[in-house]
């Protein structure tokens, strides 16, 4: 339910960041936005909740035009945004105060704020930490807290802008699990990342950007079939095996699928060997 038509954006210093972007994202979809540093991913997603206004072109978010200033607060409630640095988006002195920040801005009554804070913290599995101060939380916990802060505004769509890039592997996997759960509960997810391997198993569609333009749109399988790099280490290994003559699929990206392919290929090879020796 997001329609982007011929969107271009030029920064005040005259850098052209987006150059004629056309894109549609459907309700309930999990879309991953990938591309090199400076390719315009962040600029693009900042248009989705009216933090930036297009230089030309238009964006409609769940039927609301982002250039119409009267829609701004509705749009920001509908599309929540989680940023890269967990430290600079944590505004409260405790976890519950931080999660309450959004609902407080919406001037909701106290009992409703409390209810939303508890519900959101439960959803990201942090309810027991609600009176903790940010200095006692890990990076992953703070990032999940930031997600809870957005959930408390009950958005339909959540944009996550490189949210795992400052986290350790364990925290990253916890945050990804939380995001996958949110997607299953029906939220539209737009996930900006540099790490292709973390989104291939969970995203419905991959959008790849380069120099302010959209270069590729398609399913994870189509993405892998169309590119040489960047690809996950597993896929790279499978392609090398294939080049060595193994009969495997060069476009699998999970360890389990790769294992299955390799087992199958070795079984076929063993069978061929016995048949050849039997004939001989």
């Amino acid at each position, binding site marked *: 339910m997001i329609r982007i038509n011929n969107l271009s954006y030029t920064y005040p210093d005259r850098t052209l960041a987006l150059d004629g972007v056309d894109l549609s994202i459907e309700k309930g979809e999990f879309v991953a936005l990938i591309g090199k540093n400076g390719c315009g991913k962040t600029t693009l997603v900042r248009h989705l909740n009216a933090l930036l206004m297009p230089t030309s072109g238009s964006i409609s978010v769940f039927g609301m035009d982002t250039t119409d200033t009267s829609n701004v607060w509705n749009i*920001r409630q509908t599309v929540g945004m989680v940023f890269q640095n967990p430290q*600079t988006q944590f505004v409260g*002195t405790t976890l519950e105060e931080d999660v309450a920040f959004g609902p407080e801005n919406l001037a909701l009554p106290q009992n409703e704020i409390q209810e939303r804070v508890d519900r959101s913290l439960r959803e990201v599995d942090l309810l027991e930490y609600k009176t903790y101060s940010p200095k006692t939380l890990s990076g992953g916990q703070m990032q999940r807290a930031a997600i809870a802060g957005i959930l408390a505004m009950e958005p339909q769509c959540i944009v996550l802008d490189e949210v795992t890039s400052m986290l350790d592997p364990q925290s990253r996997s916890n945050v990804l699990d939380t995001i996958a759960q949110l997607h299953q509960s029906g939220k539209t997810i737009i996930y900006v990342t540099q790490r292709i391997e973390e989104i291939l198993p969970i995203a419905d569609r991959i959008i790849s950007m380069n120099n302010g333009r959209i270069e590729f749109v398609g399913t994870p399988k189509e993405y892998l079939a169309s590119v040489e790099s960047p690809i996950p280490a597993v896929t790279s290994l499978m392609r090398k095996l294939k080049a060595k003559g193994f009969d495997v699929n060069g476009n699998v990206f999970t360890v389990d699928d790769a294992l299955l392919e390799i087992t199958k290929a070795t079984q076929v090879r063993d069978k061929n060997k016995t048949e050849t020796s039997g004939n001989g």
Partner: protein
Amino acid sequence: MDELFLSYIHGDSILYRLDPRTKLVTLMVISILVLQTFTFPCLGVFIIFFILLAHLSGVSTGILIRSIKPMLIFFTFIFLMHLFLTKGTPIFQIGLVHPTFEGLTTGTIITARFVLLILFASLLTATTRPTMITNGIERLLRPLPLKRFGLSSFDIATMMSLSIRFVPVLLNTARQIRYAQISRCLDIRHNMFRGVSTTITPMIRESLQTADELAIAMESRCYQGNFRTSLFELKMRSADWVVLCGISGLAVLSYI
């Protein structure tokens, strides 16, 4: 730096349960009264009053008294200034230096006043969460015509709570910048102030970057700077009114 000056201490007592507005108004009245004391008996009354309140608060008196520590140099300075610069009967004389008995009395009274101010303030901050203090100040400022200056009471409250939140973060950043420079052979053994200018430049850049990211994050969470509600709505109870009546009675009495 984790134990910050005048910080909140978890606990529960009648002082914790009072509305922050009551505590703020009471602190203001007490501060005015303390600044008007000129005699030792009056100071004695306030000291007893503080001990009584500290006992009621359930916070250990040691922690409260420790809040004076960062101000010790300031207090000593004030005391010595009065001791040596007040004219009167000299206690002894060495060259031009002659402390006076009058100086000793005024110095003691004035320093004691400042110590009492800090002690009473530490009682407020120890028993009230920072958010509640900012909420209280916001509510007290709300009737003022701040719009004329392009501000709202909510803006001021947000600014205060963000300062409380980000002072430790910025201190941490400063420490990291310092370590990064020491690891590149900045020698601070003989002069603590070496490298201050090279620390300040990245510090300012970092603070502006933080402020920018924070502003964007706040804006995307619908912060508009005007009317907003709070997770902790304030409610005056009968105990609050009793305290307020008591403190106004005391103020009137002392005035007479």
